[in-house]
């Protein structure tokens, strides 16, 4: 493997990992703070991708589509939290699993009814539709770099939000002590709604920006979802830092796996997970 090829794979792996982080960080926040397992998290990724496709073919611009789609997904997330998830906080995980499994079926069928079952491509924005030449016949698309950049910015913003703001402090307190937060007169319900909507929006946004690379197709969300479960297990539930480390690890492992050992690439992430379970069942950054 020469250097340029290696560099491309490295960049691809990082980009994929950063994208996974957007989905997984929402998942881990929702787990960690609200104690909810949301199997339908991948469906929001799918919704994001389809919104990007349909709105960009309507408006002719992916950027405009994304700007329109973000508020839509936030509203969707808040609505679902109020309507459905709120009833699940005190319930056994079993029912959370069942309800969110039902929600996946509903999302899949609605997608089929609204958007059909065909595969659609999404155009890369003209501004970013370029490549950086690396060697004579190898080059790297600017759009992928842009995705990585945006993901990094969002990760930094998330870090600041959680570590430095009052909302973040409440979020952290809510994770550790629900009763205490409520006794301080902080509206925990509002925090839950916000956290849930934030997680949903992050997943949907990941689906939107990745749509030009992945195309949009049925069952788009389920693979991402399960990989993100693996990310959360490896990183440790509730740990955003862990989600970042594990996302990059998985992103690189999958990318290089597909190049080096394509037959078993699909299994590598699960082997990694098994190793972590043996060695540190609470995850790399999880609390013992």
């Amino acid at each position, binding site marked *: 493997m020469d250097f340029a090829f290696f560099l491309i794979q490295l960049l691809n792996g990082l980009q994929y990992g950063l994208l996974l982080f957007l989905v997984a960080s929402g998942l881990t926040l929702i787990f960690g703070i609200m104690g909810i397992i949301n199997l339908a998290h991948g469906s929001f990724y799918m919704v994001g991708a389809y919104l990007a496709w349909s709105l960009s073919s309507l408006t002719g611009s992916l950027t405009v589509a994304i700007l329109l789609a973000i508020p839509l997904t936030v509203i969707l997330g808040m609505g679902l939290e109020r309507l459905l998830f709120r009833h699940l906080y005190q319930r056994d995980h*079993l029912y959370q699993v069942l309800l969110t499994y039902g929600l996946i079926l509903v999302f899949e069928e609605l997608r089929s009814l609204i958007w059909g079952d065909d595969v659609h491509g999404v155009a890369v924005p003209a501004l970013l539709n370029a490549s950086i030449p690396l060697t004579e016949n190898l080059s790297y698309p600017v759009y992928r770099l842009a995705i990585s950049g945006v993901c990094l910015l969002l990760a930094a913003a998330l870090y600041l939000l959680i570590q430095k703001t009052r909302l973040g402090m409440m979020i952290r307190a809510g994770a550790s002590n629900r009763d205490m937060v409520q006794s301080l007169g902080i509206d925990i319900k509002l925090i839950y709604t916000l956290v849930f909507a934030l997680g949903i929006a992050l997943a949907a946004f990941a689906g939107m920006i990745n749509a030009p690379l992945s195309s949009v197709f049925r069952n788009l969300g389920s693979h991402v979802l399960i990989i993100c479960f693996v990310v959360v297990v490896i990183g440790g539930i509730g740990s955003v830092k862990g989600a970042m480390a594990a996302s990059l690890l998985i992103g690189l492992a999958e990318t290089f796996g597909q190049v080096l050992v394509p037959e078993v690439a699909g299994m590598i992430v699960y082997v990694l997970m098994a190793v972590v379970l043996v060695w540190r069942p609470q995850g790399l950054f999880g609390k013992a």
Partner: protein
Amino acid sequence: MNSSRFAQLLPWFVLGLLALFPLVENTFYMQLLTKVLIMAIFAMSLDLLVGYTGLVSFGHAAYFGLAGYTLALMSPGYEAVSLWWSLPAAIVVCALFALITGMLVLRTRGIYFIMVTLAFAQMLFFVFHDTKLGGGSDGAYIYVKPSMRLGDFELVNLEKAEQFYWLVLFLMAAAYLLLHRVLDSSFGRALLGIKVNEHRMRALGFPVFRYQLASFTLAGSLAGIAGYLAAVQYGFVNPEILSWHQSGAVLMMVILGGMGTLYGAVIGSFAFILLQEVLSNQAWFGAWAKHWQLAMGILIMLVALYLPQGLAGLAQKFRGKPVPESADD
């Protein structure tokens, strides 16, 4: 007849009726019933975990699918594989896989456990989807269904739908009796104790992990019986049989029927498959039949929200009896 005697005889009565069914109808409805009984075995095996051990597995299809693939890989092309050893072999493969995965997944609890069981099932999905082992995403055929011979005499030939139905019915009843017996033993009581209060069981000196692993392995083996039978019925396996939709569907059957009751799993699989047939009936629902999963999804959500004890719990509520073992704890 007093009510407890009635309750004792009812299962035998139902079993008798089911055994006579092929004499009345031996085509479409018998095959549908065969499917129900197979899924009942599958659902009971999951009930052992969810309803009696307190382990919410979302990857139970792995063992179901693995047994199907084991049969497909053992079937020698154009002649029948022997039922004598192919079924035990499939069970052993599933038991071993459950034992190994169990040792890993049982290191986790709660949400982690759900995700990890799902992830291991998905790993198996990719094993069969991405490699040539079982024909990749196209799957593999079982061209001739297994048979059971004693010397030159053919005892059972599963190509014959009635014989297959009776075998499935027999195995379903056997699985029910086995689980009933096991759950009434010291071992079963310990499992329930673990479900209700794992911490206390440990403090009482129970090696909780070993009990859970035994339960997990037994559940995997029983799911293997169901998966083997399902592969025989369809004469075909593909990665879909170990997909997470399968795991979700069987979980729905367990909850719908009423978990922690065993017979609830049977009722649940019956109700689920009936619903599936009705909702996807084009004559009744026309174009919407194609989107039957929409209605199913909504029903699943309603069950999760409003019917946590399932149909068994509903029946008990109407009879004014408290549900014996509460689900939320």
